[in-house]
């Protein structure tokens, strides 16, 4: 309860500041609509299904791109973690791509993949690839050599050491990679939708900007933040479920 109080203190203060700023029209209402106005627009968009439709489209894009990224980045991270030769072979090109922001590549991506769903999936894929790859690779590489030596002393084969020691040891790092990648996916998606889309929460924000509706823009921004936070909460729950040994670490016998 005390923690909840601390958690909501800053948002409550910001809301109060927003309320006061709007009430005394410190900024023009065209720039900063009041909280009441924003909430009523949110409610209207929620009731007529507009918000849910745009959010669902964006969510599907994130899930699609993120899953594609998982399917490529995680196995590649595992293989590179196990094989120094493969890592050295791929490193120059991966290091080059890592420093190119997906948003910078959007013009080329649109040229190659069109303005339909494929281009958004590619942007999300690129955005989430590196946190997933690097955390999987790092998790495998940083496995405690003393644990691997236990495998040797128990006569494990190289495959058994990878399967039963390196992979479980890398799970916490992989989960952090997944968490980061999910956040990066959202950011990249909104960027992609702002540039080329006819649906999705990014499109809704851009459309509202062109219609001079800052209240709708704010609703879009809040929706992204709240949905991202909720997804992160679900993810943390999943993490606790997958890592019971970490959550029980405090409960010493």
């Amino acid at each position, binding site marked *: 309860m005390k923690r909840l109080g601390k958690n909501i203190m800053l948002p409550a203060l910001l809301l109060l500041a927003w309320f006061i700023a709007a009430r005394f029209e410190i900024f023009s209402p065209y720039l900063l609509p009041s909280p009441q106005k924003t909430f009523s627009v949110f409610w209207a968009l929620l009731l007529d299904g507009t918000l849910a439709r745009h959010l669902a489209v964006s969510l599907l894009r994130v899930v699609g791109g993120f899953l594609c990224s998982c399917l490529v980045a995680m196995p590649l991270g595992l293989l590179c973690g196990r094989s120094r030769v493969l890592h050295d072979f791929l490193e120059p090109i991966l290091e080059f791509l890592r420093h190119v922001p997906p948003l910078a590549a959007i013009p080329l991506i649109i040229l190659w993949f069109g303005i339909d769903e494929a281009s958004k999936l590619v942007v999300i894929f690129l955005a989430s690839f590196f946190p997933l790859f690097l955390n999987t690779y790092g998790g495998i590489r940083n496995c405690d050599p*003393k644990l691997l030596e236990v495998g040797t002393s128990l006569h494990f084969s190289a495959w058994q050491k990878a399967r039963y020691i390196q992979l479980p040891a890398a799970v916490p790092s992989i989960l952090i990679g997944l968490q980061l990648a999910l956040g990066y996916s959202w950011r990249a998606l909104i960027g992609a939708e702002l540039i080329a889309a006819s649906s999705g929460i990014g499109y809704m924000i851009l459309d509202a900007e062109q219609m001079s509706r800052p209240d709708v823009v704010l609703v879009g921004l809040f929706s992204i933040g709240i949905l991202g936070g909720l997804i992160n909460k679900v993810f943390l729950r999943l993490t606790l479920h997958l890592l019971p040994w*970490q959550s029980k670490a405090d409960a010493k*016998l």
Partner: protein
Amino acid sequence: MTISLINLAKTYRTKDGEVVALAPTVLDIAPYSFTTVVGKSGCGKTTLLRLLAGLEGPTSGTLTFLPHRPKIGFVFQEPRLMPWLTVSENIAFAALSGKSPLSGGKLPALLDMLSLTAFANAYPSQLSGGMAQRTALGRTLFQNPDIILMDEPFGSLDYFTRKGLQETLLRLFKQEKKTIIFVTHDVEEALILGERVLIMKKGSVTGDVDVNLPYPRDAASLELLALRRKILSGIE
């Protein structure tokens, strides 16, 4: 199961030149015996054990096991438990290699012998040092090894926990036919446990002392104190 070392040696290359971890060593270890190895830090005790376990290869010399290559279990200085596995899963970890099958009563019997039944579902992060080391011992025993190599396994434990584990080990030695080689820096521990004490100094085995005393041994007995003085003078 006789272990024979013929001029077995290990040298490490460092940027400052070669370091002799184990000078050419000739040694025989009898089957079903309890041998302890004592010496100062860096005298080559752990290198000797790691060579016997096959965790490292020798620079020269040969190591033979007669009549055939035995199953070797290793207990490390630290428990080295898999943090994501429970106590019982850690003990049965060797079963994953496919070489040590998980038969019906094997795991409960080990948990019981090591007084770990009540903690079977606990994770390593929840265990005390003694419990964790007992789990590590259980993991080694699960393989049913012919030879158990132990590298200062009780070194970091408190006096009472160490005593308890020493008793467990002696019980195991008497009940099951095992060859045990136990490395320690504690001369008293070496004498309480070993039938034979090897003294190591600067990478060489410099002393070999038979301890013909019945178990359990009293560390304050005159015979043990005399042997202690003899070994200490060999180490210095």
